[in-house]
């Protein structure tokens, strides 16, 4: 098991956002967490990336190791857990190239960096064309490519994706998920968080359904897609 989360509880100012969430991701797998706005999806990813403190009793293990021993930057640079945050959050004042380079800040393997950089430009030729452009002046779709490319450069064992489809036109969205599948096929596991349940379940092998901080359903994507409650609540009937 690559990532194992047990009894995850997170509170913001005494209001609990996650009430003991259990889930796991296997090596090479694509797993999704679906749920409405405010369900606690982003909070889950933030907890893995060590951006929010978790409550006593929560455990997160990565490759059998206690993840809480690592600070946020070490989670990325030493464990290889990359995170594409909600709303892309690219550095608009840096160029495309600088955004990608920054993501290798703590990497020492210059050969590997070169190879990965070349791969990013293969997967997203658009970024190659725009290398020297200020990232803030790119379109939403291009910024999403950059956000994923940046994550690809920073860590490769697992990629945490927070609503990558948000604000993308259907065609761009399809392109994005095709790219993500390629990245996955090259060995990176994916934990995808989405409000767009149809897209997420089509993409992932397994899924978890989160409702106001509680796990309500889990299973294979095909089973979840056939589940009447999921259909009613998340797939529009």
């Amino acid at each position, binding site marked *: 098991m690559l990532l194992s989360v047990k009894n995850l509880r997170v509170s913001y100012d005494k209001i609990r956002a996650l009430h003991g969430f259990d889930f796991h991701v296997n090596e090479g797998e694509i797993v999704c967490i679906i749920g409405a706005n405010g369900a606690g999806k982003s909070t889950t990813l933030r907890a893995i*990336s060590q951006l929010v403190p978790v409550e006593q009793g929560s455990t997160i293990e990565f490759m059998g190791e206690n993840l809480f021993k690592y600070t*946020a*930057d070490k989670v990325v640079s030493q464990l290889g857990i990359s995170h594409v945050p909600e709303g892309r959050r690219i550095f608009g004042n840096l160029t495309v190239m600088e955004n990608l*380079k*920054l993501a290798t800040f703590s990497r020492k393997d210059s050969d590997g960096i070169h190879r990965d950089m070349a791969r990013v430009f293969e997967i997203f030729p658009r970024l190659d064309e725009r290398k020297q452009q200020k990232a803030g002046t790119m379109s939403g779709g291009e910024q999403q490519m950059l956000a994923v490319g940046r994550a690809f450069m920073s860590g490769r064992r697992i990629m945490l994706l927070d609503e990558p489809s948000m604000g993308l036109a259907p065609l761009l969205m399809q392109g994005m998920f095709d790219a993500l599948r390629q990245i996955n096929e090259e060995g990176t596991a994916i934990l995808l968080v989405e409000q767009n349940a149809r897209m997420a379940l089509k993409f992932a092998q397994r899924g978890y359904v989160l409702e106001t901080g509680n796990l309500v359903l889990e299973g294979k994507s095909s089973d979840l897609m056939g589940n009447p409650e999921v259909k009613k609540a998340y797939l529009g009937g």
Partner: protein
Amino acid sequence: MEFFLQNVVNALQWGSFYALIALGYSMVYGVLLLFNFAHGDIFMVGAYVGFFVATGLLLLVSSLGLVSMPGWVVLVLVILVAMFITAFVGVAVERIGYRPLRQAPRASAAITGLMIGIIFETGNLALLGARRLSFPELIETTTYTIGGVTVTNKRIMIVAVSLLLMFALHQFVQRTKWGMAMRAMAYDFAVVPLMGVPLNSIAALTFGLGSALAAAAGILFGVAYPVLSPYMGIVVGWKAFVAAILGGRGSILGAALAGFLLGFIEIFVATIFPSTLRDLIAFSIILLILVFRPHGFFGEAHTSRLRL
């Protein structure tokens, strides 16, 4: 015309001090969204560190019989060593004073900054007493007269060293990965750890760089005005702070330009109006500029700084 040029020379010198100090305010504010109100006192500490390094170095030179070591070599060494030492003072200020307050209300950090400044001032008094130290004369003054304008070698050196340091800082921020991380932090703090960048190191670096520049300013100031005082950083520090605001949030170019502009405004206001009104009028002009450019020269009205 000669009168004008003479004042230009003065303004460039004062502008150099303001610009070097303003850069520290501006970088720290840009990267950490924090006004380091102890920064003026770090300028003072830098001047004193420079004093002790210079005194020690002169002793060493004479005891080793290296009488032939030229004064400017000593000066360069003093500047570099004092910048290095003062950088660690800045790092300590961040680590001890500000880091525990990252999540605290901004007012707490402001009060802490003022407190740290007072500690530096009174600590200096307690350690060294009330006697005024005199910065050693490292280079002899040579005066040149060009077309009726007198310029000393010291003034030329002060302006040249300041410009060189600003250029070096600019290169560092634009070309190195640490500079890139600083720029990224200024844009969107919360996402930087996700790039595998240790925030605390970048915060420390920012303080270190700003403090090193303030130390350089302190030594250059000591070269021009050799009498050091524990309170020498207060007024100069406030003025540099205003220059940093005028330059725009976190803008290096802005802080440098605004520092020089402040030097010019001050000097030229003093040539027209009675010198008692100098600060009043100079600051009124700056306020007026800020009315029309509320974010300063290069400040941005908006940056995304949401929590992740």
